[in-house]
């Protein structure tokens, strides 16, 4: 039973159309489409086409059919000839005694003799035509428009199409000669097949052919049920018929994409097995396990069923003991599969080893260049295993560029050549992908050199030098980063601290250890509703660490279309991430709204986090280099009342406020005594003067000393920061909870940082305080400044969207106008006066690019 199944699969259904009918009617569960005849239906289609061809043959005009179709027009011709041969066409009609002459293959190959061949054909036809007509089978017409590959060149093509043209003319004469007598008996027909492309070419190159040859094109539909040809048939179906390996070339690449990719990686054989002894031990162990598994499969003996088993079943037993029964192609296939598995294993350990013991690989290399080699075991210095290599992370800390350069210069000059030839270093590959432009500047080039080296060097002395750096780096970058973060997103002091410490930790190699060995990419998860704060912090990170602006990719449904870059049209988010990494592997990439991303996208991102590599939609894999990824999502629930009552800053409302064009002005007025008292007494504590304002909210230790004396002013807090926190937590903490950050995400990122909703009263107060303090510094303590809430709201809105920080704006815009104001004030007795910051004009649409007013009108 099984044997016949296997062989019959490949035979065209037309050959066995009648065998299926009796069974079909019995089965009530049968798919109706199968019941309708199934293969018979296909046969019908074919016979209909044959009928069409016959109809053409009996016509008096346009009676030479050319079957045009991309799928098997030959089969129709064959069927036709079969019918002619078996005299199925009946005794009557012009075709009853027709003979078929096929043009031999040699005829077509030997182009130069084509004309003499046609003459020869002439004689053959003449001898046969008397008996009742001849159908001349021209085969595939491509011989008229193509030339053998070996010729090539435009000159040759010209010659060939000349010959083709001559052949068309000769054939036309031939046809005219034998049909000239007008009777329908003893006729000559032509029949040919062509793909659509070929037929179109024929029409172009031999424009007269259609008329001269009296041709009629017959379109053949592509519903061929032939399994061997059907393009979507799985490859194993083709292979499953031994000896019927129809398309081995086609099947190999689809079966072993991994293999071909591996080949293209261009690894030299020596590299392939270069693990250190420890890893090669492990590799051997796994290999033997693999072999054992395969053995166990092969021991499940099934000789009895061998001939009937499709190939994929045999694949399970890779190292079959009796290989002689398997034919060669199968053997090869198995070998390839087994090799593939082994290579996969090898590759895995090579990568693991590279990660765990970069030392070894470096040494291996220097062994090659410098002959006095050390013995193998000593290379794997055990204490090096303990410490994960931190180097790949160091190099991107931009602010330290100069320092790094100074100290690593001797290093760079020494093995420059060797870095370029270290094989298999992942870091090197990444750099190839990086933008060319940056390498032009000498400074960058050196830096790149450093990066290069750091990726692969791990010999003792250098590590020690760098190690020292790392410690120095630590405190320094942390401070600088924190300062930057707090300046730009001062309302998220807590988050800023968390971000700074997370980044510092990750950059120094203490991030969460994902997969095998340490990696350069960093993943942070920003949760909470404060989109602005997240964005501002990302820009600070990008600027300080990578010296660029952050790449922002929105994974969720687009919001407001603000980041609709034309280049991204039609690309999936994953492709955009891949492109960003490819463009610059040392960048900050912000993936917004991961909580709104679809499942597949989330999955891809998750896998990228886990593996440090990203597969784009074309299946290409790229390493994530040293990029910092920031995932953002909300996942929070805020008390709706809090938003409504204005306790929490509402982004949308701010946007509408700030999008108008407004100007501020300073005016001096008589103060109303009542108001002043109110202001001083009720808000005494929050506006306590803060002398350290120049340096912002930076958490420098020196500041702590400064703030010591603040305690004397009756505040119940020791430092400003604690005040902020108390207030913030007091109001906001009650109304806000991060509910549902998916554990799967939170558990794999390096760190997740909560961004609380912004308490609007806190932010307003903060702006007011900062301005007042600046004012008192410039103008003097004896004149108060009043700022209305709507003004604060506007400033806040501007800050929310503008790139500048509050300090910058005050320094650049407010301070000059204060200075301007100062001389105009009555110098002696300003008591009873108050300076007010008011909205001067509020005129609809915003005109220029700035969100905050760039100058302030001063009225004396």
């Amino acid at each position: 039973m099984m044997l016949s199944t296997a062989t019959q699969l490949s035979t065209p259904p037309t050959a066995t159309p009648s065998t299926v009918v009796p069974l079909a009617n019995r089965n009530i569960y049968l798919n109706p489409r199968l019941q309708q005849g199934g293969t018979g239906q296909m046969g019908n289609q074919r016979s209909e086409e044959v009928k069409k061809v016959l109809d053409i043959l009996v016509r008096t005009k346009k009676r030479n059919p050319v079957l045009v179709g991309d799928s098997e027009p030959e089969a129709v011709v064959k069927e036709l000839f079969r019918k002619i041969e078996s005299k199925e066409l009946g005794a009557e009609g012009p075709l009853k005694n027709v003979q078929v002459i096929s043009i031999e293959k040699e005829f077509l190959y030997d182009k130069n003799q084509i004309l003499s061949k046609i003459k020869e054909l002439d004689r053959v036809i003449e001898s046969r035509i008397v008996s009742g007509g001849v159908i001349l089978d021209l085969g595939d017409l491509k011989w008229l428009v193509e030339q053998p590959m070996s010729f090539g060149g435009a000159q040759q093509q010209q010659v060939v199409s000349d010959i083709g043209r001559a052949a068309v003319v000769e054939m036309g004469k031939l046809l005219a000669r034998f049909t000239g007598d007008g009777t329908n008996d003893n006729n000559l027909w032509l029949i040919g097949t062509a793909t659509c492309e070929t037929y179109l070419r024929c029409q172009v190159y031999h424009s007269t052919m259609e008329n001269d040859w009296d041709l009629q094109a017959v379109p053949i539909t592509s519903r061929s049920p032939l399994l061997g040809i059907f393009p979507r048939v799985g490859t194993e179906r083709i292979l499953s018929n031994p000896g019927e390996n129809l398309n081995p070339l086609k099947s190999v690449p689809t079966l072993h994409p991994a293999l071909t990719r591996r080949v293209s990686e261009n690894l030299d054989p020596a590299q392939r097995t270069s693990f250190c002894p420890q890893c090669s031990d492990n590799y051997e162990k796994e290999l033997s396990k693999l072999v054992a598994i395969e053995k166990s499969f092969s021991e499940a003996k099934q000789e009895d069923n061998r001939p009937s088993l499709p190939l994929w079943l045999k694949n399970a037993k890779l190292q079959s003991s009796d290989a002689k029964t398997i034919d060669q192609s199968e053997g090869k296939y198995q070998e390839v599969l087994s090799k593939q598995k082994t290579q996969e294993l090898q590759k895995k350990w090579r990568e693991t080893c590279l990660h765990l013991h970069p030392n070894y690989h470096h040494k291996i290399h220097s062994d090659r260049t410098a002959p006095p080699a050390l013995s193998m075991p000593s290379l794997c210095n055990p204490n090096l295993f303990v410490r994960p290599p931190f180097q790949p992370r160091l190099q991107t800390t931009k602010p330290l560029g100069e320092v790094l350069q100074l100290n690593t210069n001797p290093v760079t000059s020494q093995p420059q050549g060797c870095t370029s030839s270290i094989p298999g270093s992942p870091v090197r590959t990444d750099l190839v992908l990086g933008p060319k432009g940056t390498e032009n500047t000498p400074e960058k080039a050196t830096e790149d050199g450093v990066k290069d080296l750091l990726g692969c060097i791990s010999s003792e002395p250098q590590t020690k030098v760098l190690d020292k750096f790392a410690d120095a780096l630590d405190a320094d970058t942390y401070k600088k980063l924190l300062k930057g973060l707090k300046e730009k997103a001062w309302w998220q002091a807590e988050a800023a601290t968390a971000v700074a410490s997370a980044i510092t930790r990750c950059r120094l190699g203490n991030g969460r250890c994902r997969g095998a060995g340490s990696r350069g990419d960093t993943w942070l998860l920003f949760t909470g509703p404060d989109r602005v704060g997240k964005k501002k912090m990302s820009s600070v990170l990008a600027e300080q660490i990578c010296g660029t602006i952050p790449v922002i990719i929105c994974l969720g449904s687009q919001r407001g279309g603000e980041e609709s870059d034309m280049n991204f049209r039609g690309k999936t988010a994953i492709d955009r991430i891949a492109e960003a990494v490819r463009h610059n592997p040392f960048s900050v990439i912000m993936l917004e709204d991961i909580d709104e991303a679809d499942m597949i996208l989330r999955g891809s991102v998750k896998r990228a986090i886990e593996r440090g590599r990203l597969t784009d939609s074309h299946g290409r894999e790229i390493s994530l280099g040293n990029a910092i990824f920031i995932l953002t999502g909300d996942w929070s629930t805020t008390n709706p009342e809090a938003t409504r009552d204005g306790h929490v800053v509402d982004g949308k409302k701010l946007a509408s406020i700030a999008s108008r064009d407004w100007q501020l002005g300073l005016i001096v007025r008589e103060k109303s005594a009542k108001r002043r008292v109110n202001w001083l007494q009720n808000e005494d504590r929050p506006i306590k003067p803060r002398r350290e304002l120049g340096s912002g909210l930076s958490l420098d230790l020196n500041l702590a000393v400064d703030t010591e004396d603040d305690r004397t002013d009756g505040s119940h807090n020791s430092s400003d920061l604690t005040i902020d926190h108390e207030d913030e937590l007091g109001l906001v903490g009650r109304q806000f909870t991060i509910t549902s950050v998916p554990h799967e995400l939170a558990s794999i990122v390096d760190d997740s940082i909560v961004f609380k909703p912004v308490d609007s009263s806190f932010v307003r107060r903060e702006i007011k305080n900062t301005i007042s303090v600046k004012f008192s510094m410039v103008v003097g303590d004896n004149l108060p400044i009043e700022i209305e809430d709507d003004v604060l709201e506007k400033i806040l809105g501007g800050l929310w969207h503008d790139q500048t920080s509050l300090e910058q704006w005050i320094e650049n815009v407010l301070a000059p106008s204060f200075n301007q104001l100062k001389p105009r004030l009555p110098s002696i007795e300003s008591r009873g006066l108050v300076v007010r910051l008011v909205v001067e004009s509020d005129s609809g649409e915003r005109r220029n690019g700035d969100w905050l007013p760039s100058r302030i009108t001063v009225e004396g």
Partner: protein
Amino acid sequence: MGVVEEAHNVKLVGSGDQTIVLAHGFGTDQSVWKHLVPHLVDDYRVILFDNMGAGTTNPDYFDFERYSTLEGYAYDVIAILEELRVKSCIFVGHSVSAMIGAIASITRPDLFTKLVTVSASPRYLNDANYYGGFEKEDIQQLFEAMQSNYKAWCDGFAPLVVGGDMESVAVQEFSRTLFNMRPDIALSVAQTIFQSDMRHLLCHVTIPCHIIQSMKDLAVPVVISEYLHQNFGGKSIVEVMQTDGHLPQLSSPDVVIPILLKHIRCSIAT
């Protein structure tokens, strides 16, 4: 060679008193059982077939209406068994085919002696008091992604479902069979599967059921196996394997094959 056998690429291998039917799930074909079959052929007669709509079947036979419910597939299974004059069989169904087998066993209980389900789920969508693992929006996005770029979708979906690297042989294998499907058919099949709800039918399944499930499976949360156990009408037994992915028989055969063999060979103690 009957038309049914040919249309479903039915293969009969091995010999033995009992017959085992191996039914594959969405996006695969009978080759998904390649690791299991060699272990069965000595003791059993094994029937392998492709569900209609799989990449290896003729798309012309795919009747979008017939296959808009799982019943259509179930009738196909019975049609194959009738065609081969099988009187009784052990049905091993993976993913959607497990439910197909369940339906078939309700229609023709006489044909089935045992049902072994691998990564089966009666409903993929969450519902009140039911956790299927997917929200309606998730599914909708999935369908949209399938429609917009099938190749990209396959490449993204395969590693998720199998639970491994794009490079691993299992993922390559799955994405190959997945991509073999004609995109419109794949979409239709996926819609049928994800919108199916077999919960109300489970109580009618009277044959013994062996429920086998991966510890970590994107498509089927582990609690589903317990749900099936509670709701099947007949006896049932659950085994949760320490494997990863929706196609454990392809991705971790060394764990799954022994377990499958155990459940095929042994019956639930009375």
